């Protein structure tokens, strides 16, 4: 069946370093992906999205890369800050259930 998932449950990085969070998907027909950030006790917040006609999309300090050949996408966070500490989900919209969430990656920022 279709699935969207992340590779690592936890990622620890030094403050100021760049973070890379990975996500793999199984449906080659998938054409739209969203990254959400969820801080402890809060709802998921939209970070950035990308459509399949793009390989890369940049936001403020965040970049999403999409490799359709290997069905992989990544979220890169530049100059990681303490406020970036959260669980990050990649998700694929579609269907009546709204979103298919991948397993989250907990980003931990080391001082």
């Amino acid at each position: 069946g279709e699935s969207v998932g992340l590779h690592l449950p936890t990622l620890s990085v030094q403050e100021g370093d760049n973070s890379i969070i990975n996500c793999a998907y199984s449906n080659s027909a998938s054409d739209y992906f969203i990254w959400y950030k969820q801080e402890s006790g809060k709802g998921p917040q939209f970070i950035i999205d990308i459509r399949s006609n793009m390989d890369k999309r940049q936001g403020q300090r965040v970049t999403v890369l999409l490799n359709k050949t290997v069905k992989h996408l990544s979220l890169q966070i530049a100059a990681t800050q303490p406020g970036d500490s959260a669980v990050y989900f990649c998700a694929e919209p579609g269907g009546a259930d709204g979103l298919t969430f991948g397993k989250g990656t907990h980003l931990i920022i080391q001082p």
Partner: protein
Amino acid sequence: AAGVIQSPRHLIKEKRETATLKCYPIPRHDTVYWYQQGPGQDPQFLISFYEKMQSDKGSIPDRFSAQQFSDYHSELNMSSLELGDSALYFCASRPRGQGGEKLFFGSGTQLSVL
């Protein structure tokens, strides 16, 4: 900008009690989704509504019911609460028309069943 509003923010109940969670979507969003997220778990889809009609059901127990009202707000009713129902319950809404793939989430209701 207006966001998805959920109430209450926190709720403590005893086993076998009932609970009602409320969700107010962003204006002009006609689709509402409910998710349940246990500690350390990914959000699990419960139920969705489109234009006040139930759209789809996920892993929602029979003890739970929900509806969407004429003003598009939604309520999740939970009866015969069990300890395992303790979780963070999110509501999300989606705008109409093009660009409606993104879901916008509320801050959630933290339900604790004692």
